[in-house]
């Protein structure tokens, strides 16, 4: 019974570790907002909201990593990767938007967001550093 309990607990820890990698919404440190509604996050990444509160331009950064991107889409955008691709193809082929900048490496995304005024992106909480600002999502 004890072995089963330990095995079960180890399984829970592993499972928790797999899903607890929290995805944070980050932005350039100069962005005035500290808290934004989840609906606004969705509208920003869908290219509907293109300006911050001070009317400065929003620059979107996404990751090419399929798992990280899918996790972010599910958590914040409520879309699947295929829906996301279809949506942005619509934007691009109607001239209503340009494809968000996408990065192979999280480090490159961090560097871009830290260096680009108005930039917004997302990151696994474990990889966060102090060059960017974390936005609180309500």
């Amino acid at each position, binding site marked *: 019974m004890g072995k089963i309990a330990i095995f079960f607990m180890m399984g829970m820890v592993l499972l928790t570790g797999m899903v607890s990698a929290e995805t944070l919404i980050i932005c350039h440190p100069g962005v005035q907002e500290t808290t934004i509604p989840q609906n606004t996050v969705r509208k920003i990444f869908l290219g509907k909201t293109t300006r911050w509160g001070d009317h400065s331009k929003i620059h979107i950064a996404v990751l090419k990593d399929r798992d990280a991107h899918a996790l972010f889409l599910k958590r914040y955008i409520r879309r*699947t990767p295929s*829906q996301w691709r*279809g949506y942005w193809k619509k934007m*691009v*082929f*109607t*001239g*209503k938007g340009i*494809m968000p900048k996408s990065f192979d490496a999280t480090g490159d995304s961090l560097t871009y967001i830290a260096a680009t005024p108005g930039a917004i992106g997302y990151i696994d909480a474990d990889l966060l550093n102090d060059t960017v600002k974390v936005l609180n999502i309500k």
Partner: protein
Amino acid sequence: MKKYIIAVIFICIASSASAFDAESLQLHGFLSQGYLKTNSNDALFARTSSGGTFEFNEFGLNIVSQVDDNLRVGVQCLSRDLGEVGNNEVEIDWAYGDYNYRNELGFRAGKMKTPYGLYNQSRDIDAARSSILLPSSIYSESFRESISTTIGVGIYGELPGGLEYQAVYGTTQLKKDEGVAKTMSQITGIPEFVDASVDWAYAGDLKWLTPVEGLTVGASTLGYKATLFFEVPAPSTFDFEAKAYIGSVEYICGDLTLASEYQLMAVDYSIPAFHKNGKKELEGYYFLASYRVNEWFEVGSYYNIEYSDTDDRKGNAYRAQGEPAAKAWLKDLALTTRFDVSDNMVFKLEGHLMDGLANVSYDAQDPDETWYMLAAKVTFSF
């Protein structure tokens, strides 16, 4: 000459970008090749019966430059073929500047995709939707060239409460030998038009992203005033004014998408030389559902109904003229599949069970009111 103009526009936009990086300058394109086959009757201006047709494609290439934080300019060239329409002539699909300095207000000028209903602006983009053919009650091939783009000016933005708006005013495209002319030829009996012109055109679209997550409700309108010129039986004009209204609902919940739209279109026309005028009111609606089973497979279905005259949904007038009553309607039950072979390649296959002969070429000796259509299409995009 047109090819040179297009090349110059591309070069101008390319040179306007301060640097060739993904954020200031982007080049994208798509190639779609399809196949259509019906068991009887010819549909969509193509010879779809007998051996079917491969005259069903779209090729597009665009270049867009984000000139600065406020201004974006771009152009897309499109070549398409659908039976007798398009014939792969290269045209400027859209070319406009977009100046945006507030979420609430942006300006556009040039040739723009007309905002109308849920899918009119993206109807050329096969990769962006579940089915190959959009429901014809709203996205009819008969009026496609006239409601596809507007050349003029536009405003757009988002308003408090989840509202989004778009409005355009200017003129639109009308050709002497494409969908509108062919449809008007059927209505009036005038065998051929030799020229076409548009006086004005407008469109407006309002969408409400409701507090219910994934639920969007919309309303759209468009209109235009135009003239078709003919020589036979006597030189004269066919003047008409078209006005249309759509109510739309779309609900996206995870992998499930549900949508429905209703349209009413009125066409007032006159032929001064014949002292003839009249009004036709067309009606249509559809219900659509699609479900993404996994990353590479999606299945969908829609039921589409359209009537060519709301005063005669049963086709009594056609019957009285000795024609099939079924010319008054077209009902389409579609089953669609989509296979995402990769991020840049999509294959689709769908079947349509049709009831009716509206906008269909049929054998007058033996009209077949119930018929089938198969459509297949492969699309590459980058």
